[in-house]
């Protein structure tokens, strides 16, 4: 290990010197915060605990200064820093120069730890006078994670490393990343990944102290909800970007980087369901702790996969200098997490037992089984190249068909469960009640599926998915109907007032239903585009027409336009339905002088029935063009569903506490 920054000459590389010294300062402070937290907690010395918290405030401040320093350097094109040479240039818009903070490995690790320090500050602010028994260990854990990232940054990925020889211009940012969606995708994803550190810290604190009560539960649940929301948003923005920029007609390719974000999402979704069982019944206590710790581990693994390139090359392990650091840290967390769990098992395990097969508790257990099962399948498929490399000496990858084949049945089962779960009561539901509740939705489902069958849908999976989706819509609608009817009877409110009040007064329950509704629409989009996508390639000369799903495409001409920073080749196409002109579409390609590659401009015409999606494949000197035409049925609903999930997430985050949950039995376990 070396300390290269000692050699940074402040007169020659002032920004590199200041940035690195500030990082080292933050490192020291995080180290102190960790030690002070553990010491103050174990010895029960509140002044030490407070002192550790003050050190964390200071790291937040210092890291903010570091980030603004790097932002300032990016904005002013300080090409003294190697990071800025590699990831920015003076030719790109300034907004995207700022986005280069998370454009590369070094910057994004700094971004990670900065977000963590902001989260840390929020946690400290929120808990100045609350949850004091847990706070020493919460802040020590947050400090530990900060310390790890700062160590990695300082020793293996310092964004303030100066360039060996002066250069006048940077290499710039890939033009396909200079898009608004790409500017907001990584921050959302990182707010998700990083945010899971907070519930993880609360879980560690519960293990160390052996205490869990309602106050603790509120904290750990809310702090899991916030990153869940941002992770959902990040994943959706990423798939939207892939859909409209990459030009292969889809939005999800089971790429390791995508899988990396899906895994913590699946586990945190499982966690947000099973934590309700703990609230209501004080069950699954150890399981929940395990789940949230695994979510955190997968978040760090996800950052590692995304930022190291470990899975994108043929042989790994020597790929990136940050690899060793992450492997040590992940093993450390895994080992100590399991050890803590083992030691504390007798204290945290639940005393309550499940009372009936047909109960909300048991349906949540199966929900957890399916979500963790999908997560396991994705993890296995994603890491299999590494496993086979270790075992056999060469990498064997599994492609998209594997993931589709495995996740489809599990996703279907999950969807069905989403439909029937709300109908099952806590503790012990009666079969007669359950059957009565289920009758109307099942009849409705059967009718819709039969109609689809009569209309010619014969494939088993689309029918099953649509059926399950309709079941969820029906049961959810029934729940809303009942809630609205009850409010109308009790308070005489008009329908829409009752509906709104339902969402405001019982945000968790009805907000959750809104998320479920969104998930169903999302599934409709997936089924439509996965099973019924039409893809055709045509060659057209000016004046020719082509046909696609009832649309007529009339190709007019090819144009080349020159702009200061790019050249644009565009085919102009008139989209008609019969004789009626619907719209004009302009698929094209952009050529940027600084980038090696042109950028596809996909042309999309979207309706609720389906998207016309055109890619300009190639052209010749006589303006003849080869077009790749896609028709993606129902994909519109994928995005609507995504928006609904986010809206539902916002409703659920409403801080109002449902009174029913306050009655939950919460035996605080005494310190052993």
């Amino acid at each position, binding site marked *: 290990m070396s300390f290269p920054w000692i050699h940074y000459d402040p007169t020659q590389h002032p920004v590199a010197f200041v940035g690195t010294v500030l990082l080292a300062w933050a490192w020291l402070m995080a180290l102190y915060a960790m030690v002070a937290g553990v010491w103050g907690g174990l010895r029960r010395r509140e002044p030490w605990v407070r002192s550790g918290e003050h050190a964390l405030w200071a790291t937040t401040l210092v890291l903010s200064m570091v980030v603004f320093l790097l932002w300032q350097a990016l904005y002013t094109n300080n090409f003294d820093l190697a990071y800025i040479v590699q990831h920015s240039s003076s030719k790109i818009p300034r907004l995207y120069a700022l986005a280069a903070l998370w454009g590369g490995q070094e910057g994004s690790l700094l971004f990670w730890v900065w977000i963590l320090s902001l989260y840390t500050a929020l946690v400290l602010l929120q808990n100045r006078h609350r949850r004091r028994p847990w706070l020493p260990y919460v802040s020590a854990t947050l400090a530990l994670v900060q310390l790890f990232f700062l160590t990695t940054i300082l020793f293996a990925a310092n964004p303030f490393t100066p360039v060996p020889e002066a250069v006048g211009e940077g290499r710039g940012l890939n033009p396909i990343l200079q898009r608004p969606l790409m500017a907001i995708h990584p921050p959302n994803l990182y707010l998700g990944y990083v945010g899971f550190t907070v519930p993880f810290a609360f879980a560690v604190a519960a293990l160390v102290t052996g205490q869990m009560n309602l106050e603790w539960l509120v904290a750990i649940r809310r702090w899991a909800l916030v990153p869940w929301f941002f992770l959902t948003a990040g994943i959706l923005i990423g798939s939207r970007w892939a859909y409209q920029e990459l030009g292969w007609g889809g939005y999800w390719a089971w790429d390791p*980087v995508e899988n990396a974000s899906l895994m913590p999402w699946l586990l945190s979704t499982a966690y947000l369901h099973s934590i309700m069982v703990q609230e209501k019944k004080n069950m699954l206590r150890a399981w929940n702790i395990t789940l949230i710790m695994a979510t955190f581990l997968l978040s760090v693994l996800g950052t590692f996969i995304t930022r190291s390139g470990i899975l994108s090359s*043929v042989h790994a392990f020597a790929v*990136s200098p940050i690899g060793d650091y992450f492997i040590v840290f992940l093993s450390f967390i895994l080992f100590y997490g399991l050890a803590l769990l083992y030691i504390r098992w007798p204290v945290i395990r639940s005393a309550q037992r499940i009372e009936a097969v047909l*109960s909300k508790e048991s349906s949540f257990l199966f929900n957890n089984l399916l979500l963790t099962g999908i997560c396991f*399948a994705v993890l296995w498929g994603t890491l299999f190249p590494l496993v086979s490399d270790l075992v056999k000496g060469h990498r*064997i990858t599994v492609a998209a068909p594997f993931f589709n*084949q495995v996740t489809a049945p599990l996703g279907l089962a999950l969807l069905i469960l989403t439909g029937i779960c709300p109908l099952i009561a806590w503790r012990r539901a009666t079969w007669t009640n359950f059957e009565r509740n289920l009758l109307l939705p099942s009849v409705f489902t059967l009718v819709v599926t039969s109609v689809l069958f009569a209309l010619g849908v014969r494939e088993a999976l689309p029918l099953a998915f649509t059926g399950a989706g309709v079941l969820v819509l029906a049961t959810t609608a029934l729940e809303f109907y009942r809630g609205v009817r009850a409010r109308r009877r009790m308070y005489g409110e008009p329908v829409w007032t009752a509906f709104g009040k339902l969402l405001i007064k019982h945000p968790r329950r009805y907000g959750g239903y809104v998320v479920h509704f969104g998930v169903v629409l999302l599934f409709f989009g997936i089924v439509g585009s996965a099973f019924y996508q039409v893809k055709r390639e045509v060659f057209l000369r000016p004046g020719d027409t082509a046909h696609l799903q009832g649309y007529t495409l009339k190709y007019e001409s090819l144009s080349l336009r020159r702009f200061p920073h790019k050249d644009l080749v565009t085919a102009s196409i008139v989209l008609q339905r019969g004789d009626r002109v619907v719209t004009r579409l302009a698929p094209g390609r952009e050529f940027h002088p600084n980038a090696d590659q042109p950028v*596809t401009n996909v042309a999309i015409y979207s309706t609720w029935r389906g998207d016309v999606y055109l890619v300009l494949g190639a052209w010749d000197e006589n303006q003849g063009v080869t077009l*790749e035409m896609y028709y993606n049925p129902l994909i519109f609903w994928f995005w609507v569903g995504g928006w609904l999930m986010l809206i539902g997430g916002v409703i659920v985050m409403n801080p109002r506490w449902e009174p029913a949950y306050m009655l939950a039995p919460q035996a605080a376990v005494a310190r052993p």
Partner: protein
Amino acid sequence: MRLRAREIVIGGLSLGILLIGYLVFSGMRGQQQYYLHLDELDRMAAEIDGKGVRINGRVEPGSIRKAPQRLVYDFAITDGQRRVTVHYEGVVSDMFKDGIEVVVEGRYDARRNHIEATRLLTKCPSKYQADTARP
């Protein structure tokens, strides 16, 4: 003897775990692709003849042939010493051109030293950083 709820639920969950395990491991069959460098492809040619492969390499400069008016491409990828020819139909990424690094997926034919590609990926330079970091 009447089973208690707990036993039934645990039984159901265990069955579920077994089913998921079966799904995952049976799903692996037939979906495996050998992810290889070109020199390994050379060495293992007999073993992987007719199987799915995923090959990394650079597009040999001057080798790209495109069928007129169609999105049909024939090219070769190389590591400087060895080469393999590739046939691909479909839209190629914006980055596809001479000398760039690509990943090709498809069936390998050892006799012709040829890949009938089903997927052609060009590396997204900022998502992955392996290129600059690889020794």
